[in-house]
């Protein structure tokens, strides 16, 4: 029966997708430095180890600063670009939008190498946190525009005109009408760019300088087999944090959709 095979395929697919992630907490609580079955016993040692590694804390903090900053920058740029592309007609619009969206399909290694050349060779500047932020903003902006374009084009232009007609300025109209109504899109955009920046490795590896981001730091740890359970513990915490973050974002997105009276057309969960 084809239905039976499809069911087996679906289960195999899900196992393939999620089993490695479920292995993270299993080995994070396993009392052995070797990642292998059978398990040796329960421990929270790896988690307490995490709290004592200063370099790890620096890497987490560095990554958070980079992710938050590039998410805010990319979303702000995305709001401007999405509004311009949905509301105004200007010469060479298609070409300009195409150029902005290009980093979406550009291999990250190319972005990383060219930025490295520009920053170090051409500009002669030292690599630091800001160089990673700039690069992450560059790769996140197209995602933000894609998300925000949908929000802005769903927004009836006469809502903005009505507010101006009733005495508001362009800026107060944006604050009172446009911004609240595209808020779900803005939250999605912040969240996606935060996530992209947080787990981005190649660009961060090239441009990071003396302060590694979390993925770069984890990559460094993997050279020492004794540290692998600590990485597992760290991964467990990150998975839980991601699920929590997505749930919160989805809750606000659904509330926003319900408040704006639109029909729910997708989302993360």
């Amino acid at each position, binding site marked *: 029966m084809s239905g039976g095979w499809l069911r087996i395929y679906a289960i195999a697919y899900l196992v393939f997708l999620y089993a490695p992630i479920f292995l993270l907490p299993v080995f994070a609580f396993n009392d052995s430095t070797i990642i292998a079955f059978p398990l040796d016993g329960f421990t929270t040692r790896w988690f307490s180890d995490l709290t004592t590694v200063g370099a790890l804390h620096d890497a987490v903090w560095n990554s958070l600063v980079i992710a938050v900053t590039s998410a805010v920058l990319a979303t702000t740029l995305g709001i401007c670009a999405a509004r311009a592309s949905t509301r105004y007609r200007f010469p060479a619009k298609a070409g300009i939008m195409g150029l902005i969206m290009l980093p979406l399909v550009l291999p990250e290694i190319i972005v990383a190498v060219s930025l490295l050349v520009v920053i170090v060779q051409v500009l002669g500047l030292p690599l630091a946190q800001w160089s990673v932020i700039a690069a992450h903003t560059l790769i996140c902006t197209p995602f933000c525009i894609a998300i925000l374009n949908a929000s802005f084009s769903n927004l009836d232009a*006469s*809502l903005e005109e*009505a507010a101006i007609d009733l*005495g*508001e300025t362009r800026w107060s109209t944006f604050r009172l009408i446009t911004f609240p*109504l595209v808020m779900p899109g803005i939250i999605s955009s912040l969240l996606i760019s935060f996530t992209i920046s947080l787990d981005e490795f190649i660009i961060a590896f090239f441009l990071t300088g003396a302060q590694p981001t979390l993925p770069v730091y984890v990559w460094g740890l993997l050279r020492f087999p004794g540290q692998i359970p600590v990485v597992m513990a760290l991964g467990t915490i990150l998975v839980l944090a991601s699920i929590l973050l997505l749930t919160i974002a989805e809750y606000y997105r659904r509330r926003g959709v319900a408040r704006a*009276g639109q029909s729910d057309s997708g989302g993360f969960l």
Partner: protein
Amino acid sequence: MTASPRRTLIEARDVVKTYGDFTALEGIDLDIREGEFFSLLGPSGCGKTTLLRTIAGFEDMSAGTVKIDGKDMAGVPPNRRPTNMVFQSYAIFPHLSVGENVGFGLRRSSMSKAEKAKAVEEALAMVGLKGYGNRSAQALSGGQRQRVALARALILKPKVLLLDEPLSALDKKLREQMQVELIKLQRTVGITFILVTHDQEEALVMSDRIAVMFDGRIAQMDDPETLYKHPKTRDVAEFIGVMNFLPATVTATDGRIGVDVAGLGAASLDPGQCAGTISAGDCSVGVRPETMSILFPDDTPRGRVAEGVVDEVVYYGDMTYYDIHLDGADTPVRISMRNLMGRPVLDIRTRTRVAWDERSLVLFP
């Protein structure tokens, strides 16, 4: 209808609007009086909405001037004009309550909170939505959204209220009800209303004066009765109501106009019945369906009589439309008859007499 001539409130002179190669408005001259219910009527793409948005300040003119209450509006943004607009989509802010929507325009006023709340309550009462203030704007029906949009625009007491096809989203019954309510509302508040519509019936029902627009120009600007009875061009005559056109030949032009009309015969018309300048030769004569009538066998004819054969019958309950093939005419003419008691509905191919009146003919060059 406004009886006495009033002060001009809006004065448009030679307004031109072009988008690239496309000319949306081609030299519009317009005077709209204070307290008038004025309609811009025309088919889609004729420039009526562009003209309305130009008055509101949402569109920049390519040339010309618009004055409101004597003040030149050049460079004045929509939020500084004494106009408010009811949008086609109503543009109700979905994230605000009904009361917050209606009171939106008062945000910048110096009124106290209590005064604002009172103004909102009054505006809602005016449109028949008393007590709706705390409801979600999402929970409203189409008719209620329209009322909220009206209350929101009128709360600022604008000199001019602009309405962009406000009734087109409503079903027929509700539309007719809202037409009457809008007329009453306009009389109560005394504000000048400018309505954009493509529905000629709506324009006739509601307006003191109508400007009929085609291809970016005003073809005719008159009160509804003049527009209906004395259309200045064939386009206007065809757009407003139904008009039959019969080929005719002008035989005399000194004093009264003599014409020979296909299917009706010779007629003598007053020069006032001519749209445009008439010269001897071929022309066409327009006649409205309700100015002709079927003569039943026991009817005594008043006016002139023609004969023909029933080509088609369309029964509407209160009315019947007959398409009659008049003897000597190429195409049938439409005649509308009220279905009075005891009067039969004729069958197709029945031979019948048709009464008509010289005074109801309009001559087009």
